[in-house]
Protein backbone atom coordinates (compact mmCIF):
# COMPACT_ATOMS: atom_id res chain seq x y z
CA UNK A 1 0.00 0.00 0.00
CA UNK A 2 1.25 3.50 -0.69
CA UNK A 3 1.09 6.35 1.78
CA UNK A 4 -2.15 7.75 0.39
CA UNK A 5 -4.06 4.88 2.03
CA UNK A 6 -5.34 3.70 -1.33
CA UNK A 7 -5.64 0.03 -2.19
CA UNK A 8 -4.60 -1.13 -5.63
CA UNK A 9 -7.47 -1.33 -8.10
CA UNK A 10 -9.41 -4.58 -7.73
CA UNK A 11 -7.22 -5.46 -4.73
CA UNK A 12 -9.98 -7.35 -2.90
CA UNK A 13 -11.10 -9.22 -6.00
CA UNK A 14 -7.58 -10.33 -6.86
CA UNK A 15 -6.57 -11.08 -3.32
CA UNK A 16 -9.69 -13.17 -2.88
CA UNK A 17 -8.43 -15.73 -5.44
CA UNK A 18 -4.95 -15.65 -3.99
CA UNK A 19 -6.20 -16.39 -0.46
CA UNK A 20 -8.55 -19.16 -1.55
CA UNK A 21 -5.70 -20.76 -3.51
CA UNK A 22 -3.26 -20.64 -0.60
CA UNK A 23 -5.79 -21.91 1.93
CA UNK A 24 -7.01 -24.67 -0.40
CA UNK A 25 -3.42 -25.78 -0.91
CA UNK A 26 -2.80 -26.09 2.82
CA UNK A 27 -6.18 -27.28 4.08
CA UNK A 28 -7.47 -29.14 1.03
CA UNK A 29 -10.26 -28.64 -1.48
CA UNK A 30 -12.57 -30.75 0.67
CA UNK A 31 -12.99 -27.64 2.80
CA UNK A 32 -13.67 -25.39 -0.18
CA UNK A 33 -17.00 -24.09 1.15
CA UNK A 34 -15.55 -23.28 4.55
CA UNK A 35 -12.57 -21.61 2.89
CA UNK A 36 -14.79 -19.44 0.68
CA UNK A 37 -16.88 -18.48 3.72
CA UNK A 38 -13.78 -17.61 5.73
CA UNK A 39 -12.47 -15.41 2.91
CA UNK A 40 -15.81 -13.64 2.48
CA UNK A 41 -16.00 -13.17 6.25
CA UNK A 42 -12.50 -11.71 6.23
CA UNK A 43 -13.49 -9.05 3.70
CA UNK A 44 -16.52 -8.21 5.84
CA UNK A 45 -14.28 -7.73 8.86
CA UNK A 46 -12.03 -5.55 6.73
CA UNK A 47 -14.96 -3.38 5.64
CA UNK A 48 -16.10 -2.93 9.23
CA UNK A 49 -12.65 -1.97 10.36
CA UNK A 50 -10.90 -0.23 7.45
CA UNK A 51 -13.92 1.95 6.82
CA UNK A 52 -13.03 3.78 10.03
CA UNK A 53 -9.26 3.56 10.13
CA UNK A 54 -8.25 3.16 6.51
CA UNK A 55 -6.36 0.07 5.31
CA UNK A 56 -3.51 -1.19 7.53
CA UNK A 57 0.12 -0.80 6.46
CA UNK A 58 0.25 -4.34 5.12
CA UNK A 59 -3.23 -5.14 3.84
CA UNK A 60 -2.20 -8.44 2.23
CA UNK A 61 -0.70 -9.79 5.44
CA UNK A 62 -3.65 -8.52 7.46
CA UNK A 63 -6.18 -10.29 5.22
CA UNK A 64 -4.19 -13.53 5.05
CA UNK A 65 -3.79 -13.68 8.81
CA UNK A 66 -7.46 -12.96 9.53
CA UNK A 67 -8.67 -15.42 6.86
CA UNK A 68 -6.49 -18.17 8.21
CA UNK A 69 -7.63 -17.60 11.79
CA UNK A 70 -11.26 -17.60 10.75
CA UNK A 71 -10.75 -20.80 8.77
CA UNK A 72 -8.98 -22.59 11.63
CA UNK A 73 -11.72 -21.59 14.05
CA UNK A 74 -14.44 -22.73 11.63
CA UNK A 75 -12.70 -26.06 11.03
CA UNK A 76 -12.34 -26.60 14.78
CA UNK A 77 -16.05 -25.88 15.25
CA UNK A 78 -16.91 -28.35 12.50
CA UNK A 79 -14.58 -30.96 13.98
CA UNK A 80 -16.34 -30.71 17.33
CA UNK A 81 -19.68 -31.31 15.63
CA UNK A 82 -18.55 -34.21 13.46
CA UNK A 83 -15.68 -36.26 14.72
CA UNK A 84 -12.62 -35.18 12.80
CA UNK A 85 -10.83 -37.88 10.91
CA UNK A 86 -7.30 -38.66 11.96
CA UNK A 87 -5.97 -37.33 8.71
CA UNK A 88 -7.35 -33.91 9.53
CA UNK A 89 -6.18 -33.88 13.12
CA UNK A 90 -2.68 -32.48 12.45
CA UNK A 91 -4.13 -29.52 10.55
CA UNK A 92 -6.59 -28.75 13.30
CA UNK A 93 -3.84 -28.96 15.85
CA UNK A 94 -2.43 -25.81 14.25
CA UNK A 95 -2.97 -22.94 16.54
CA UNK A 96 -3.85 -19.54 15.18
CA UNK A 97 -0.58 -18.30 16.64
CA UNK A 98 1.60 -20.74 14.64
CA UNK A 99 3.50 -19.38 11.64
CA UNK A 100 1.02 -18.66 8.91
CA UNK A 101 1.22 -21.20 6.08
CA UNK A 102 -0.63 -18.77 3.84
CA UNK A 103 1.81 -15.93 4.41
CA UNK A 104 4.63 -18.42 4.26
CA UNK A 105 3.31 -19.70 0.94
CA UNK A 106 6.17 -18.56 -1.25
CA UNK A 107 4.40 -19.54 -4.42
CA UNK A 108 0.93 -18.02 -4.24
CA UNK A 109 0.97 -17.84 -8.03
CA UNK A 110 1.46 -21.60 -8.31
CA UNK A 111 -1.49 -22.15 -6.01
CA UNK A 112 -3.65 -19.92 -8.16
CA UNK A 113 -2.60 -21.72 -11.32
CA UNK A 114 -3.42 -25.07 -9.72
CA UNK A 115 -6.77 -23.72 -8.55
CA UNK A 116 -7.49 -22.32 -12.00
CA UNK A 117 -6.72 -25.68 -13.59
CA UNK A 118 -9.07 -27.34 -11.09
CA UNK A 119 -11.82 -24.82 -11.92
CA UNK A 120 -11.39 -25.54 -15.63
CA UNK A 121 -11.81 -29.29 -15.10
CA UNK A 122 -13.34 -30.82 -18.25
CA UNK A 123 -16.04 -32.54 -16.17
CA UNK A 124 -17.72 -29.12 -15.89
CA UNK A 125 -19.56 -27.49 -18.77
CA UNK A 126 -17.88 -24.49 -20.38
CA UNK A 127 -20.44 -22.14 -18.85
CA UNK A 128 -19.88 -23.68 -15.41
CA UNK A 129 -16.13 -23.37 -15.79
CA UNK A 130 -16.48 -19.65 -16.51
CA UNK A 131 -18.81 -19.23 -13.53
CA UNK A 132 -16.70 -21.07 -10.99
CA UNK A 133 -13.47 -19.42 -12.21
CA UNK A 134 -14.96 -15.96 -11.80
CA UNK A 135 -16.36 -16.91 -8.42
CA UNK A 136 -13.33 -18.59 -6.88
CA UNK A 137 -10.38 -16.87 -8.58
CA UNK A 138 -11.85 -13.45 -9.20
CA UNK A 139 -14.07 -13.00 -6.14
CA UNK A 140 -17.25 -12.39 -8.16
CA UNK A 141 -20.36 -12.68 -5.98
CA UNK A 142 -23.69 -14.17 -7.02
CA UNK A 143 -25.33 -10.89 -8.13
CA UNK A 144 -22.26 -9.95 -10.18
CA UNK A 145 -22.16 -13.35 -11.86
CA UNK A 146 -25.87 -13.20 -12.63
CA UNK A 147 -25.42 -9.79 -14.17
CA UNK A 148 -22.27 -10.63 -16.11
CA UNK A 149 -23.57 -13.86 -17.63
CA UNK A 150 -27.24 -12.90 -17.80
CA UNK A 151 -28.51 -15.66 -15.56
CA UNK A 152 -30.89 -15.37 -12.65
CA UNK A 153 -29.38 -15.50 -9.19
CA UNK A 154 -30.99 -18.81 -8.28
CA UNK A 155 -29.49 -20.42 -11.39
CA UNK A 156 -26.07 -19.04 -10.45
CA UNK A 157 -26.35 -20.36 -6.89
CA UNK A 158 -27.32 -23.81 -8.12
CA UNK A 159 -24.53 -23.87 -10.68
CA UNK A 160 -21.97 -22.86 -8.04
CA UNK A 161 -23.17 -25.59 -5.67
CA UNK A 162 -22.89 -28.14 -8.46
CA UNK A 163 -19.41 -26.95 -9.44
CA UNK A 164 -18.12 -26.93 -5.88
CA UNK A 165 -19.41 -30.46 -5.27
CA UNK A 166 -17.61 -31.65 -8.41
CA UNK A 167 -14.44 -29.79 -7.46
CA UNK A 168 -14.37 -31.38 -4.02
CA UNK A 169 -14.85 -34.77 -5.62
CA UNK A 170 -12.48 -34.42 -8.60
CA UNK A 171 -9.75 -32.29 -7.12
CA UNK A 172 -9.56 -33.07 -3.41
CA UNK A 173 -5.93 -31.99 -3.33
CA UNK A 174 -4.56 -29.10 -5.33
CA UNK A 175 -1.13 -30.67 -4.98
CA UNK A 176 -2.21 -33.35 -7.44
CA UNK A 177 -1.67 -30.77 -10.15
CA UNK A 178 2.07 -30.42 -10.07
CA UNK A 179 2.99 -27.39 -12.11
CA UNK A 180 4.12 -29.64 -14.96
CA UNK A 181 0.76 -31.43 -14.89
CA UNK A 182 -1.05 -28.11 -14.64
CA UNK A 183 0.86 -26.88 -17.67
CA UNK A 184 -0.53 -29.82 -19.65
CA UNK A 185 -4.03 -28.59 -18.88
CA UNK A 186 -3.40 -25.01 -19.93
CA UNK A 187 -4.77 -25.30 -23.48
CA UNK A 188 -8.17 -26.09 -21.88
CA UNK A 189 -7.70 -23.25 -19.42
CA UNK A 190 -6.89 -20.87 -22.27
CA UNK A 191 -10.10 -21.84 -24.06
CA UNK A 192 -12.01 -20.77 -20.95
CA UNK A 193 -10.06 -17.52 -20.70
CA UNK A 194 -10.76 -16.86 -24.38
CA UNK A 195 -14.48 -17.47 -23.80
CA UNK A 196 -14.41 -15.33 -20.66
CA UNK A 197 -12.83 -12.48 -22.61
CA UNK A 198 -15.41 -12.84 -25.36
CA UNK A 199 -18.23 -12.84 -22.81
CA UNK A 200 -17.05 -9.38 -21.86
CA UNK A 201 -16.34 -8.30 -25.41
CA UNK A 202 -19.33 -9.52 -27.33
CA UNK A 203 -21.65 -7.28 -25.39
CA UNK A 204 -24.90 -9.19 -25.55
CA UNK A 205 -25.92 -8.20 -22.07
CA UNK A 206 -26.24 -4.60 -21.23
CA UNK A 207 -26.52 -1.26 -22.90
CA UNK A 208 -23.06 -0.24 -21.76
CA UNK A 209 -21.86 -2.67 -24.40
CA UNK A 210 -18.64 -4.10 -23.07
CA UNK A 211 -18.14 -5.69 -19.71
CA UNK A 212 -14.63 -4.46 -18.89
CA UNK A 213 -14.42 -6.49 -15.70
CA UNK A 214 -14.67 -9.82 -17.50
CA UNK A 215 -12.04 -8.79 -20.05
CA UNK A 216 -9.78 -7.49 -17.31
CA UNK A 217 -9.99 -10.75 -15.36
CA UNK A 218 -9.35 -12.82 -18.50
CA UNK A 219 -6.20 -10.77 -19.15
CA UNK A 220 -5.05 -11.05 -15.55
CA UNK A 221 -5.46 -14.84 -15.47
CA UNK A 222 -3.74 -15.25 -18.84
CA UNK A 223 -0.76 -13.30 -17.46
CA UNK A 224 -0.86 -15.48 -14.36
CA UNK A 225 -0.47 -18.76 -16.28
CA UNK A 226 1.98 -17.38 -18.83
CA UNK A 227 5.23 -18.35 -17.00
CA UNK A 228 4.36 -22.07 -16.95
CA UNK A 229 2.53 -22.41 -20.26
CA UNK A 230 3.77 -24.58 -23.12
CA UNK A 231 3.69 -23.20 -26.71
CA UNK A 232 0.57 -25.28 -27.50
CA UNK A 233 -1.42 -23.25 -24.97
CA UNK A 234 -0.75 -20.15 -27.11
CA UNK A 235 -0.88 -17.84 -24.10
CA UNK A 236 1.21 -15.15 -25.80
CA UNK A 237 -1.02 -15.14 -28.86
CA UNK A 238 -4.08 -15.05 -26.61
CA UNK A 239 -2.64 -12.08 -24.70
CA UNK A 240 -1.85 -10.31 -27.98
CA UNK A 241 -5.41 -10.91 -29.14
CA UNK A 242 -6.82 -9.58 -25.87
CA UNK A 243 -4.65 -6.46 -25.91
CA UNK A 244 -5.58 -5.66 -29.52
CA UNK A 245 -9.18 -6.08 -28.40
CA UNK A 246 -9.12 -3.86 -25.34
CA UNK A 247 -7.09 -1.23 -27.23
CA UNK A 248 -10.12 -0.65 -29.44
CA UNK A 249 -12.73 -0.51 -26.67
CA UNK A 250 -13.18 3.28 -26.59
CA UNK A 251 -13.69 3.50 -30.35
CA UNK A 252 -16.11 0.59 -30.38
CA UNK A 253 -18.27 2.18 -27.74
CA UNK A 254 -18.25 5.53 -29.45
CA UNK A 255 -19.33 3.86 -32.65
CA UNK A 256 -22.10 1.75 -31.01
CA UNK A 257 -19.94 -0.93 -32.22
CA UNK A 258 -19.29 -4.36 -33.14
CA UNK A 259 -17.18 -5.75 -35.90
CA UNK A 260 -19.09 -4.31 -38.83
CA UNK A 261 -18.73 -0.64 -37.91
CA UNK A 262 -14.99 -1.01 -37.70
CA UNK A 263 -15.36 1.13 -40.81
CA UNK A 264 -16.78 3.96 -38.75
CA UNK A 265 -14.44 3.78 -35.80
CA UNK A 266 -12.41 6.83 -34.94
CA UNK A 267 -8.99 5.22 -34.90
CA UNK A 268 -7.49 8.10 -32.96
CA UNK A 269 -9.42 6.67 -29.99
CA UNK A 270 -7.52 3.39 -30.18
CA UNK A 271 -5.14 3.04 -27.26
CA UNK A 272 -1.67 2.97 -28.79
CA UNK A 273 0.00 1.80 -25.58
CA UNK A 274 -2.26 -1.26 -25.45
CA UNK A 275 -1.70 -1.90 -29.16
CA UNK A 276 2.06 -1.82 -28.50
CA UNK A 277 1.51 -4.33 -25.72
CA UNK A 278 -0.39 -6.50 -28.19
CA UNK A 279 2.51 -6.37 -30.67
CA UNK A 280 4.91 -7.28 -27.87
CA UNK A 281 3.00 -10.49 -27.10
CA UNK A 282 2.46 -11.20 -30.80
CA UNK A 283 6.22 -11.10 -31.22
CA UNK A 284 6.66 -13.48 -28.28
CA UNK A 285 4.10 -15.80 -29.84
CA UNK A 286 5.99 -15.70 -33.15
CA UNK A 287 9.16 -16.79 -31.36
CA UNK A 288 7.38 -19.78 -29.85
CA UNK A 289 7.12 -21.22 -33.35
CA UNK A 290 3.59 -22.50 -32.75
CA UNK A 291 0.85 -21.01 -34.93
CA UNK A 292 -2.59 -22.08 -33.77
CA UNK A 293 -5.98 -20.48 -33.70
CA UNK A 294 -5.14 -17.64 -31.32
CA UNK A 295 -2.03 -16.74 -33.28
CA UNK A 296 -4.02 -16.42 -36.51
CA UNK A 297 -6.69 -14.38 -34.77
CA UNK A 298 -4.06 -12.16 -33.16
CA UNK A 299 -2.42 -11.62 -36.56
CA UNK A 300 -5.77 -10.54 -38.00
CA UNK A 301 -6.34 -8.16 -35.09
CA UNK A 302 -2.81 -6.77 -35.56
CA UNK A 303 -3.54 -6.00 -39.22
CA UNK A 304 -6.63 -4.04 -38.22
CA UNK A 305 -4.64 -2.20 -35.57
CA UNK A 306 -1.84 -1.44 -38.03
CA UNK A 307 -4.14 0.11 -40.63
CA UNK A 308 -4.15 3.91 -40.25
CA UNK A 309 -7.67 4.08 -41.69
CA UNK A 310 -10.30 1.61 -42.80
CA UNK A 311 -9.53 1.86 -46.53
CA UNK A 312 -5.89 1.00 -45.80
CA UNK A 313 -6.83 -2.39 -44.27
CA UNK A 314 -4.92 -5.31 -45.75
CA UNK A 315 -8.05 -7.32 -46.58
CA UNK A 316 -6.24 -9.72 -48.88
CA UNK A 317 -4.04 -11.00 -46.03
CA UNK A 318 -6.93 -10.95 -43.57
CA UNK A 319 -8.97 -13.05 -45.98
CA UNK A 320 -6.13 -15.57 -46.32
CA UNK A 321 -5.74 -15.77 -42.53
CA UNK A 322 -9.46 -16.40 -42.08
CA UNK A 323 -9.18 -19.19 -44.63
CA UNK A 324 -6.43 -20.79 -42.54
CA UNK A 325 -8.64 -20.39 -39.48
CA UNK A 326 -11.52 -21.99 -41.35
CA UNK A 327 -9.32 -25.03 -41.98
CA UNK A 328 -8.70 -25.32 -38.24
CA UNK A 329 -12.32 -24.67 -37.24
CA UNK A 330 -14.50 -25.70 -40.20
CA UNK A 331 -17.69 -25.66 -38.11
CA UNK A 332 -17.40 -22.04 -36.92
CA UNK A 333 -20.09 -19.79 -38.36
CA UNK A 334 -18.34 -16.71 -37.03
CA UNK A 335 -15.04 -17.48 -38.76
CA UNK A 336 -16.79 -18.24 -42.06
CA UNK A 337 -18.79 -15.01 -41.85
CA UNK A 338 -15.66 -13.03 -41.09
CA UNK A 339 -13.88 -14.68 -44.00
CA UNK A 340 -16.78 -13.65 -46.26
CA UNK A 341 -16.65 -10.07 -45.00
CA UNK A 342 -12.88 -9.93 -45.60
CA UNK A 343 -13.44 -11.40 -49.06
CA UNK A 344 -16.14 -8.82 -49.81
CA UNK A 345 -13.60 -6.07 -49.15
CA UNK A 346 -10.68 -7.82 -50.84
CA UNK A 347 -12.58 -8.81 -54.01
CA UNK A 348 -15.72 -6.65 -53.90
CA UNK A 349 -19.20 -7.60 -52.62
CA UNK A 350 -20.44 -9.42 -55.75
CA UNK A 351 -18.28 -12.58 -55.52
CA UNK A 352 -19.54 -13.39 -52.00
CA UNK A 353 -23.26 -12.81 -52.62
CA UNK A 354 -23.78 -16.31 -54.06
CA UNK A 355 -22.18 -17.97 -51.04
CA UNK A 356 -24.06 -15.73 -48.60
CA UNK A 357 -27.41 -16.53 -50.25
CA UNK A 358 -27.05 -20.25 -49.52
CA UNK A 359 -25.42 -19.77 -46.09
CA UNK A 360 -27.61 -21.00 -43.23
CA UNK A 361 -26.87 -21.14 -39.53
CA UNK A 362 -28.24 -23.53 -36.97
CA UNK A 363 -30.03 -22.59 -33.77
CA UNK A 364 -27.99 -19.79 -32.25
CA UNK A 365 -29.86 -16.46 -32.49
CA UNK A 366 -26.55 -14.62 -32.17
CA UNK A 367 -25.16 -16.31 -35.29
CA UNK A 368 -28.44 -15.77 -37.17
CA UNK A 369 -28.26 -12.06 -36.34
CA UNK A 370 -24.69 -11.78 -37.58
CA UNK A 371 -25.56 -13.58 -40.81
CA UNK A 372 -28.54 -11.30 -41.49
CA UNK A 373 -26.54 -8.19 -40.64
CA UNK A 374 -23.68 -9.31 -42.88
CA UNK A 375 -26.07 -10.04 -45.76
CA UNK A 376 -27.63 -6.61 -45.38
CA UNK A 377 -24.26 -4.93 -45.40
CA UNK A 378 -22.93 -6.82 -48.42
CA UNK A 379 -26.16 -6.31 -50.43
CA UNK A 380 -26.09 -2.65 -49.51
CA UNK A 381 -22.54 -2.22 -50.78
CA UNK A 382 -23.42 -4.11 -53.96
CA UNK A 383 -26.28 -1.61 -54.52
CA UNK A 384 -29.06 -4.23 -54.03
CA UNK A 385 -31.26 -1.96 -51.90
CA UNK A 386 -34.36 -4.20 -51.67
CA UNK A 387 -32.42 -7.30 -50.58
CA UNK A 388 -30.40 -5.20 -48.16
CA UNK A 389 -33.59 -3.88 -46.55
CA UNK A 390 -35.05 -7.39 -46.22
CA UNK A 391 -31.87 -8.69 -44.61
CA UNK A 392 -31.75 -5.74 -42.21
CA UNK A 393 -35.43 -6.29 -41.26
CA UNK A 394 -34.54 -9.88 -40.40
CA UNK A 395 -31.51 -8.74 -38.42
CA UNK A 396 -33.67 -6.33 -36.44
CA UNK A 397 -35.90 -9.22 -35.35
CA UNK A 398 -32.86 -11.20 -34.25
CA UNK A 399 -31.05 -8.34 -32.48
CA UNK A 400 -29.63 -9.41 -29.12
CA UNK A 401 -29.34 -6.03 -27.44
CA UNK A 402 -30.18 -2.33 -27.89
CA UNK A 403 -26.79 -1.62 -29.44
CA UNK A 404 -27.37 -4.19 -32.16
CA UNK A 405 -30.80 -2.74 -32.98
CA UNK A 406 -29.41 0.78 -33.03
CA UNK A 407 -26.67 -0.22 -35.43
CA UNK A 408 -29.09 -1.94 -37.83
CA UNK A 409 -31.47 1.04 -37.80
CA UNK A 410 -28.61 3.35 -38.70
CA UNK A 411 -27.68 1.11 -41.59
CA UNK A 412 -31.30 0.95 -42.77
CA UNK A 413 -31.50 4.74 -42.86
CA UNK A 414 -28.34 4.78 -44.95
CA UNK A 415 -29.94 2.30 -47.39
CA UNK A 416 -32.91 4.59 -48.04
CA UNK A 417 -30.62 7.50 -48.94
Amino acid at each position, binding site marked *: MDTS*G*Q*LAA*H*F*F*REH*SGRMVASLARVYGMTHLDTILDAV*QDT*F*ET*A*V*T*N*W*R*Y*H*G*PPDHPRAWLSQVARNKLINALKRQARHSHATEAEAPLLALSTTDPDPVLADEAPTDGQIQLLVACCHPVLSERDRILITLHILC*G*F*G*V*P*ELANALQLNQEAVKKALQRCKALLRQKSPKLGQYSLAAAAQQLPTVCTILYLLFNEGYKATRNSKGIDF*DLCYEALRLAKLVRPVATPEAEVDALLALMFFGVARFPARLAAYGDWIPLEEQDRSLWNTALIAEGFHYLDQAKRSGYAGRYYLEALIASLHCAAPHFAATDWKTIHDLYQLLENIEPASTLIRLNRLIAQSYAQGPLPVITELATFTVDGSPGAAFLLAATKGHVYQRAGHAAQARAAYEEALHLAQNPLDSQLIRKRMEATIL
Partner: protein
Amino acid sequence: MKEFLMLIREDANYGELSAEEMQACIEKHYRWVETLREKGQFKEAQPLEAGGAHIRGKQRIVSDGPFLEGKECVSGYYILLAESLEEAIEIAKGNPDLDWDRAVEVREIMPMED
Protein backbone atom coordinates in the same frame (compact mmCIF):
# COMPACT_ATOMS: atom_id res chain seq x y z
CA MET B 1 -16.66 24.62 17.82
CA LYS B 2 -19.08 21.99 19.13
CA GLU B 3 -18.72 18.22 19.15
CA PHE B 4 -21.31 15.92 17.62
CA LEU B 5 -21.71 12.19 18.00
CA MET B 6 -22.64 10.44 14.76
CA LEU B 7 -23.88 6.88 15.22
CA ILE B 8 -23.90 4.49 12.25
CA ARG B 9 -26.84 2.13 12.24
CA GLU B 10 -26.90 -0.76 9.85
CA ASP B 11 -27.96 -4.28 9.19
CA ALA B 12 -24.66 -6.02 9.89
CA ASN B 13 -24.97 -8.34 6.94
CA TYR B 14 -22.70 -7.76 3.98
CA GLY B 15 -23.65 -11.07 2.38
CA GLU B 16 -24.81 -9.46 -0.81
CA LEU B 17 -21.80 -7.18 -1.22
CA SER B 18 -19.12 -8.40 -3.60
CA ALA B 19 -15.39 -8.03 -2.98
CA GLU B 20 -15.30 -5.14 -5.42
CA GLU B 21 -18.15 -3.31 -3.69
CA MET B 22 -16.58 -3.83 -0.27
CA GLN B 23 -13.36 -2.29 -1.51
CA ALA B 24 -15.30 0.64 -2.97
CA CYS B 25 -17.01 1.12 0.40
CA ILE B 26 -13.69 1.34 2.23
CA GLU B 27 -12.17 3.71 -0.30
CA LYS B 28 -15.14 6.08 -0.29
CA HIS B 29 -14.99 6.31 3.49
CA TYR B 30 -11.27 6.86 3.48
CA ARG B 31 -11.55 9.73 1.01
CA TRP B 32 -14.47 11.24 2.89
CA VAL B 33 -12.64 11.21 6.24
CA GLU B 34 -9.62 12.79 4.53
CA THR B 35 -11.75 15.73 3.36
CA LEU B 36 -13.24 16.09 6.86
CA ARG B 37 -9.74 16.16 8.34
CA GLU B 38 -8.67 18.87 5.90
CA LYS B 39 -11.64 21.00 6.94
CA GLY B 40 -11.03 20.38 10.64
CA GLN B 41 -14.41 18.67 11.03
CA PHE B 42 -13.14 15.29 12.21
CA LYS B 43 -12.12 14.36 15.74
CA GLU B 44 -12.25 10.56 15.84
CA ALA B 45 -14.10 7.47 14.71
CA GLN B 46 -14.26 3.87 15.85
CA PRO B 47 -16.03 0.72 14.69
CA LEU B 48 -17.76 -1.44 17.29
CA GLU B 49 -17.44 -5.21 17.61
CA ALA B 50 -20.63 -7.08 16.76
CA GLY B 51 -20.68 -8.91 20.08
CA GLY B 52 -21.41 -7.35 23.47
CA ALA B 53 -23.95 -7.38 26.26
CA HIS B 54 -27.00 -5.51 27.42
CA ILE B 55 -27.29 -4.94 31.18
CA ARG B 56 -30.53 -3.63 32.64
CA GLY B 57 -31.91 -2.27 35.89
CA LYS B 58 -31.38 -2.88 39.56
CA GLN B 59 -31.23 -6.63 39.00
CA ARG B 60 -28.28 -6.16 36.62
CA ILE B 61 -29.95 -8.50 34.13
CA VAL B 62 -27.39 -9.30 31.47
CA SER B 63 -28.43 -10.30 27.98
CA ASP B 64 -26.42 -10.72 24.80
CA GLY B 65 -26.93 -8.59 21.72
CA PRO B 66 -28.44 -7.78 19.29
CA PHE B 67 -29.03 -4.42 20.79
CA LEU B 68 -32.11 -3.32 18.97
CA GLU B 69 -35.46 -4.89 18.28
CA GLY B 70 -35.01 -4.26 14.59
CA LYS B 71 -32.31 -5.75 12.46
CA GLU B 72 -30.25 -2.57 12.52
CA CYS B 73 -27.63 -2.07 15.17
CA VAL B 74 -24.97 0.52 15.91
CA SER B 75 -21.82 -0.50 14.06
CA GLY B 76 -19.62 2.45 14.93
CA TYR B 77 -19.40 6.11 15.76
CA TYR B 78 -17.72 9.35 14.72
CA ILE B 79 -17.05 12.51 16.68
CA LEU B 80 -17.58 15.43 14.30
CA LEU B 81 -16.66 19.08 14.87
CA ALA B 82 -19.12 21.74 13.69
CA GLU B 83 -20.47 25.17 14.59
CA SER B 84 -24.10 24.07 14.74
CA LEU B 85 -26.40 21.07 14.46
CA GLU B 86 -27.31 22.25 10.95
CA GLU B 87 -23.69 22.15 9.90
CA ALA B 88 -23.19 18.75 11.55
CA ILE B 89 -26.21 17.41 9.63
CA GLU B 90 -24.74 18.69 6.36
CA ILE B 91 -21.45 16.95 7.18
CA ALA B 92 -23.26 13.74 8.09
CA LYS B 93 -25.13 13.76 4.77
CA GLY B 94 -21.77 13.23 3.10
CA ASN B 95 -21.21 9.92 4.89
CA PRO B 96 -20.83 7.24 2.20
CA ASP B 97 -22.64 4.75 4.49
CA LEU B 98 -25.84 6.40 3.28
CA ASP B 99 -25.04 5.23 -0.27
CA TRP B 100 -25.39 1.67 1.03
CA ASP B 101 -28.74 2.56 2.60
CA ARG B 102 -27.44 2.62 6.12
CA ALA B 103 -28.71 5.21 8.62
CA VAL B 104 -26.77 7.74 10.65
CA GLU B 105 -27.87 9.62 13.76
CA VAL B 106 -26.32 12.98 14.68
CA ARG B 107 -26.47 14.33 18.27
CA GLU B 108 -24.71 17.24 19.86
CA ILE B 109 -22.51 16.25 22.77
CA MET B 110 -23.64 18.47 25.64
CA PRO B 111 -20.70 20.62 26.71
CA MET B 112 -19.65 20.75 30.34
CA GLU B 113 -20.92 23.99 31.95
CA ASP B 114 -18.09 26.25 33.05
